[in-house]
């Protein structure tokens, strides 16, 4: 599929923008040889692109392949098919040297603030590592680390401390500082706020939004919580069992979801207003989506068909292609 920029094929347009990140027909299979061929792929022909300065959200349940896509982009997961392009360059199978070359522009913030910083290194050493890899001197790296800590709202002297001396929220800010220290173009945020409490989650989300506005960053924001995603992302891609179910503007996808799975996902996300939540519950129960526990994964056709109230024989026979429905792209025969 792809949400292609309409400008892309316009000849000679000065406004022509090359997507910052372009994922095309990405396939990732776990396991080796026969085992990999037998199981349905963890990521199955996923395509999307991110423009400079744009934030795209990747939403799905556990096992939807959203984190695997992030890892494939970062080179942490071997890709079985398709391609990942970054700034017009194919980085699908980039080696360590190539990764080092683009490592300052393509960065990551991970979920668990407890294990994303080496407990045996000072904050300064962890922050300086990406700079040192690029041959920046120790003293300069330290100053940069101090500046960056200040930017994420921590005192400069935090450079000499160890991760265990900080709370979860502070550690996640340090991870953000580590990602942004070499002035990247794109940051992959893999469940970057999921482990945090409400008030700290809001602090980190605000920080990400501020830094984006200041530096014109792009984010690939991966999360299971569609409400968190829509705070940062203008565009979202909804995944189910490794396939794109729906993609489009965040407002359109969350307010008038077209795919039965997106409808179920949006309706299941509870809101803290009892009267409205009661309405949403009634809507959810009327959707008639079957429970995930009742069905096993079977290859072929639409991955959601066994839970889907609209499913017919066609859905088992033929995998629905993404097509435009309203303002979004939807992979459903009946949307």
């Amino acid at each position, binding site marked *: 599929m792809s949400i292609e920029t309409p400008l892309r094929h316009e000849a000679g347009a000065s406004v022509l923008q090359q997507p910052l990140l372009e994922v095309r027909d990405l396939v990732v299979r776990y396991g080796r040889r026969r085992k990999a061929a037998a199981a349905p792929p963890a990521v199955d022909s996923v395509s999307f692109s991110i423009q400079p300065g744009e934030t795209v959200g990747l939403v799905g349940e556990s096992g939807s392949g959203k984190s695997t896509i992030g890892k494939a982009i970062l080179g942490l997961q071997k890709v079985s098919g398709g391609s990942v392009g970054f700034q017009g360059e194919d980085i699908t199978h980039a080696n360590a040297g190539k990764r080092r070359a683009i490592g300052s522009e393509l960065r990551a913030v991970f979920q668990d603030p407890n294990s994303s910083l080496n407990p045996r290194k000072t904050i300064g050493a962890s922050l300086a590592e990406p700079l040192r890899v690029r041959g920046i001197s120790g003293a300069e790296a330290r100053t940069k680390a101090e500046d960056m800590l200040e930017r994420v709202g921590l005192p400069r002297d935090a450079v000499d401390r160890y991760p265990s001396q900080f709370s979860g929220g*502070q550690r996640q800010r340090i991870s953000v500082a580590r990602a942004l220290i070499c002035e990247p173009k794109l940051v992959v945020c893999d469940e970057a706020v999921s482990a945090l409490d409400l008030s700290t989650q809001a602090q980190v989300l*605000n920080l990400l939004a501020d830094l984006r506005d200041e530096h014109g960053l792009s984010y690939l924001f991966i999360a299971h919580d569609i409400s968190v995603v829509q705070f940062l992302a203008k565009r979202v891609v909804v995944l189910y069992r490794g396939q794109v179910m729906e993609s489009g503007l965040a407002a359109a996808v969350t307010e008038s979801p077209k795919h039965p799975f997106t409808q179920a996902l949006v309706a299941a996300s509870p809101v803290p207003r009892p009267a409205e939540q009661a309405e949403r519950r009634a809507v959810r129960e009327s959707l008639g989506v079957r429970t995930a526990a009742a069905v096993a994964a079977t290859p072929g056709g639409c991955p959601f068909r066994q839970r889907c109230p609209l499913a017919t024989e066609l859905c088992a026979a033929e995998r629905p292609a993404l097509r435009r429905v309203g303002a979004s792209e939807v992979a459903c025969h009946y949307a």
Partner: protein
Amino acid sequence: MIPTLPATSRKTALTKLSGHRLINSPAGLAGTLWLSAIIIASLTAAWWLPYKTEDQDFTAVLSGPTAAHWLGTDELGRDILSRIFASAAETLGTSFITVIVGVGLGTLLALAAANSQRGEGIISRVTEVMMSLPGTVIILAIVGAVGTNIPLIMAILGVLISAGIYRVILGQAKSLQNQLYVDAAKVDGLGPFAISVRHVLPGLATTIVVQSALIFAVGLLIQAGLAFIGFGPPLPQPSWGGMIQSASQHVYDAPWLMVPTGVVLALTVLSANAIGNALGKAAHATASHLPSAAIRRKRAGQAVAAASAAPPVQDAPEAGKLSVRGLSVGVDGGTPLVTDVAFDVEPGTVLGLVGESGCGKTMTALSLMGLLPTGVAVTSGQILWNGKNLAAATDKDMDAIRGRDIALISQEPMRALDPMFTVGYQLTSAIRRLRSVGEQEAAAEALSLLEKVGIVDAKRILKTYPHQISGGMAQRVAIALALSGNPRLLVADEPTTALDVTVQAEILSLLRSLVKDTGMSVVMVTHDLGVVADICDHVAVMYAGQVVENGRAASILDNPRHPYTLALLAADPHANSAHDMPERLATIKGQVPQPKDWPTGCRFAARCQFAGSACTVPIPLLPSGTGAGLVRCVKADELAMEGLAWVPTDVPASHRLDIIEKDMA
């Protein structure tokens, strides 16, 4: 806020390793002293030894300790002391070759294997072959081929031992390799070698040092053994094994001859083992600061007695009603974790305990079950269940209530299920125990319970093991397990936090229908205000160990009175839909204070946008003006009257420093 943690945590793993761990263990200390003494004595032997190794004193052959020969002489009248220490340097040094080769090679192999799956496959097969080779035979073959070249033999011994070391280190190296900070380093562009050296190897330090100490002891023994059977250094050069061998020929006529060499060898081996044990044990140190079981029981007894002394409440006991009054929970030794918590749960209703982590909601819930962790106990207050005070109940009384009257479901359903037994076995044995019914009846009941919790193919699920079912299914099974004693109250500790939202919605619907059908009540611990809105009738908002607001869920969520509740709602992205999503979410500066830092006044004041001078005195729970609601804020009426809202602090990241300075003050 930052300087709250002790400075000791600044020490690196390595300084901790070499430092007080050894000294704290008597055996480790003794071992270190002995080994240092032996090493120093053997290195300086040339300067202080009274005799040369081959000097013979025919006036004192096979003598015991004398003034001239402190440790006696051997069958040729040679001084034992001189011979032991003259050969010590070589013995220790060549044993160290085994350590360097064995541990070094094993570590390198483990690091390489942890780096790539294919490498691991190959290396593991090779080491399996190495481990299956008979070591003694190989060493004897090498002696036959190249003669008694001790350094070479010890190096080959190291190679043979490295296979075992590899096995020990591999698991740890692999878990370190899977840490997110290794992923982060890969994203930086660090190559596999740099990652191994910078991020994996430091984490292996303890294991490597412990293994080295143990292998050193093994090397010493094997070397002595080889010399004993005649494969030591060529005569007349002394060696420990050789000296023991010659002593063994005089066991009857000169038994003393065995003692000095044997004792030195045994003590050196024991020292190496003691050092290894001390370092290894320190790495898995237990929580020794906690009081012993006996002291805990005594303190709990005192607390219970104090609780019973409190006047009973006047209300007539009501079946299935839970009343918590003035409940305080604290660590043995004083630090309070929960203070003066009060709430009621009527039959057939759901109470939500809400707050961020560190607010005491889980401790409150666990105290209802009498399941507080070791070292934590109820310090005052009452938990009235059917008119009986559970805070003063003995363990035996609680056993009769747990599972039957009050049941628990936890955040991690897999923890409630034993991986060794089938779902059916666990369910039927719980039913048999709690309801005293026969096996057949229990089996039928298990099936109907699974159907009751919405499992479609209950018969198949009964035969499965916990690892074969999904997280949502496991939580259903855990709920069925909790229902097996027909409880009247269900304590649910974040039961849906680990689940996908669609599964969460299903579990909440299930709980709602169970409450409706059975009339049981639920205490639901959660941090998710959406979950509260969905299922709770009443809610108690907790902050820093206190209830700051409680009342009907609908009125609190739609019309919050406490600034903390206001702030939580404003920080929740779920409270906004896409079209009215704000530019910035509201935040609460700083973080929940540690129990030891709780102020005497309002505990939220330091983070509150509306705090004033009136907030520095202890604040009681006051009627909030909406129904029976209570709020712990002196400014609640003022805020409600002026319609004040928690405003997002609109500070760009680059100017954030002023907030931090306030935080730290």
